[in-house]
């Protein structure tokens, strides 16, 4: 099918094509003109997602989800909002509506719900792409009514969103109230227990006091350790002095004993000399001998004394150790008792603290919810108020006529081509060879107009001249 053929077919079947085109376009236009006019009023609300909630002071997590906007649209188109509109605009009072209701339902069911359903059927709410604006539009034959309904819906929706926030807040409020009371009672009880315990123990335990006692205990134990060392030392010396008096360093180091020993040695040496010189019974020897014996007895008694003093000091040390140990034990018992009391008190104190914390949390939520329950504003704001439209939204005459024109054109073409397919005629010279497989000899033009060529007389130089009077000189 070449373009040339198409043109030829259209030229041949122009009447059918034109009549089809005119018929379809005419019927479309007529139908468009005859259909009742519908007006669409539209308004919009913006759902404020980005800014933080005025009461909670932060962006709510659920708001950012894509389902949030759909939820809002569902709320807007819900029967609750529609019934609110019916109440606000007092549509239930109109006589016409009541008659319609009787006709359609026979007076069965809830009239107000029926009106609300009627409103919802022509209401359209759709989200704008990529933003948080919801467009609300309503179709009605009456432009004023359509605008009023859209505005009514926006208003009722705003009221409903506020209600949806405040109602649960009120409910929570009462819940929080009761639980706060309980928690307060708990706190009081815990505090009472703590103070009673403290009174019973008769002391106020604090960490400072405990630290002092502990330090004292440590000091005592340190003292005991050093004293025990001293006692051991003195014990060992005493033992040495008792067993080997002549070798004990304490006895040897005593100057008196040393002097006495020297004296003894000297006297004995003299005695030896006198013996040798005078014999045994010389008076001098006898004198000397008694001196030496005196000295020796003195020395012995001195040694005993020194050893005795060592044992005394040892005894003193031992008794001091015993005393210290007793006081240490006492101190240790005291500290343990203190620790025990302190732990019990700490348990009670913790009870008090946790009760306090629970109470604080509930109280802060209580304040929030009481604020919310009194809120008059949600995060939804009316953006555009609907105005009564001046141009009907449907039927769109221009669009319909254009579309009808295109459709009519297509239908006319299809019809003509279908007819041509059904009854194919010879249309163009170029068809001959492919269709018949014959060479084209040429074409004989139409001789409908009888036209005489003006070319030849011109070519032969013959023009119709004027009749001239000839001179009579024949």
């Amino acid at each position, binding site marked *: 099918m070449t373009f040339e053929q198409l043109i030829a077919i259209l030229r041949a079947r122009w009447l059918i094509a034109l009549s089809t085109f005119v018929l379809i376009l005419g019927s479309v236009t007529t139908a468009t003109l005859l259909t009742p006019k519908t007006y669409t009023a539209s308004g919009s609300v913006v759902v404020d997602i980005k800014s933080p909630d005025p009461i909670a002071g932060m962006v709510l997590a659920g708001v950012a989800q894509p389902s949030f906007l759909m939820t809002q649209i569902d709320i807007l188109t819900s029967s609750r909002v529609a019934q609110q509109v019916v109440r606000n605009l007092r549509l239930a009072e109109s006589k016409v509506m009541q008659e319609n209701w009787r006709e359609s339902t026979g007076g069965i069911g809830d009239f107000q719900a029926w009106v609300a359903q009627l409103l919802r059927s022509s209401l359209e709410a759709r989200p704008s792409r990529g933003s948080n604006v919801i467009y609300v539009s309503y179709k009605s034959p009456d432009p004023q009514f359509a605008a009023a309904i859209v505005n009514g819906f926006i208003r009722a929706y705003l009221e409903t969103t506020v209600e949806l926030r405040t109602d649960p807040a009120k409910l929570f409020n009462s819940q929080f109230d009761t639980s706060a009371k309980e928690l307060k009672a708990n706190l009081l009880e815990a505090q009472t227990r703590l103070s009673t315990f403290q009174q019973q123990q008769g002391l106020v335990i604090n960490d400072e006091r405990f630290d002092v006692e502990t330090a004292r205990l440590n000091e005592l134990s340190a003292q005991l350790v050093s004293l025990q060392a001293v006692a051991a030392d003195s014990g060992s010396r005493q033992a040495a002095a008792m067993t080997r008096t002549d070798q004990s360093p304490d006895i040897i180091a005593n100057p008196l004993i040393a002097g006495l020993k020297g004296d003894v040695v000297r006297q004995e040496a003299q005695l030896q000399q006198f013996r040798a010189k005078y014999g045994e019974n010389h008076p001098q020897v006898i004198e000397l001998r008694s001196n030496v014996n005196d000295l020796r007895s003195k020395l012995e008694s001195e040694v005993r004394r020194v050893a005795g003093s060592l044992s005394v000091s040892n005894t003193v040390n031992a008794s001091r150790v015993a005393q210290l140990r007793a006081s240490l034990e006492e101190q240790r018992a005291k500290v343990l008792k203190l620790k025990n009391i302190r732990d019990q008190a700490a348990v009670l104190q913790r009870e008090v603290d946790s009760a306090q914390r629970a109470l604080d949390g509930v109280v802060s939520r209580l304040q929030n919810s009481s604020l919310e329950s009194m809120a008059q504003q949600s995060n939804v704001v009316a953006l555009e108020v609907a105005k009564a439209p001046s141009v009907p939204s449907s039927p769109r005459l221009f669009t319909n006529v254009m579309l009808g024109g295109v459709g009519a054109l297509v239908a006319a073409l299809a019809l003509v081509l279908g007819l041509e397919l059904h009854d194919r005629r010879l249309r163009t010279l170029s068809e001959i060879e492919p269709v018949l497989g014959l060479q084209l000899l040429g074409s004989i033009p139409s*001789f409908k107009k009888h036209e005489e060529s003006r070319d030849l007389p011109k070519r032969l130089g013959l023009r119709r001249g004027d009749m001239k009077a000839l001179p009579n000189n024949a």
Partner: protein
Amino acid sequence: MDANVQDPSLGEILRRTKGLTGEQVDQALEYQRAHGIRFGEAVVALGMARPEDIIWALSQQFHYPYAPVSERSLNDELVVANSPFSENIEAFRDLRTQLLMGVMAEGDNRRPLAIVSANSGDGKSFIAANLAVAFSQLPGRTLLIDADLRSPRLHEVFGVEASPGLSGILAGRTEPNVIKPVGHLPNLYLLPAGVQAPNPAELLHRAAFSLLLRELLAKFDHVLVDTPAATHGPDARIIAAHCGAAMVIGRKGESRVKPMQELVAHLNKSKIHIAGALVNEY
């Protein structure tokens, strides 16, 4: 002007046909000498004849026969004879040339040409008649046979008696004067269809038709055969088969393609030399 010995002078022809007197001829000659123009222009300038008459007279001088304008003695359909100088007529001359170069070439295998088409109303008779006139304006003799035994029209077109004609010959009757000359066109002869026969297909099947064609081909230089529409029966195919050459006609915007294709397929099957297809734009 020098008049040829054989050919009559323009003044002579005008005097014979347009009724110019000798005085008028002399006047024209004098005028011609005085103004230094051609005789025809002088006659026209003096208002003794119209330019068309002069052209016709010239055509007579040049042996180019056509029907004089003033008389309109021939049917309007014969455009080649009535208005030979119209530009549209060139189409017929062109077609004539193509046929002479092709299927109707002079030689041993010269064949009569059957003019066939699928549907009635395609303009077979119109084209056959005018093509015959175009051939007749050549030297040699041209015969047009009206083999459309179903609804013959050519005798009306040329204004001759319908019978006796072809049907009589095929039926075996000896008919005198079946081939009829056509007025104003001295080289053209017509064999009309004759009496309406009830059995045209059977008549055409006879060998007599083939013999007749061969005999006529010996006597005439160009033989054209008009046929009934192929949708009316096998006549056209039979005639084409007898002739051995055919030209298919389709009418632009009217002819249905399917019957045409069938016709061509049949012609191809019977080994007929097809000159080609002609499109009638009427």
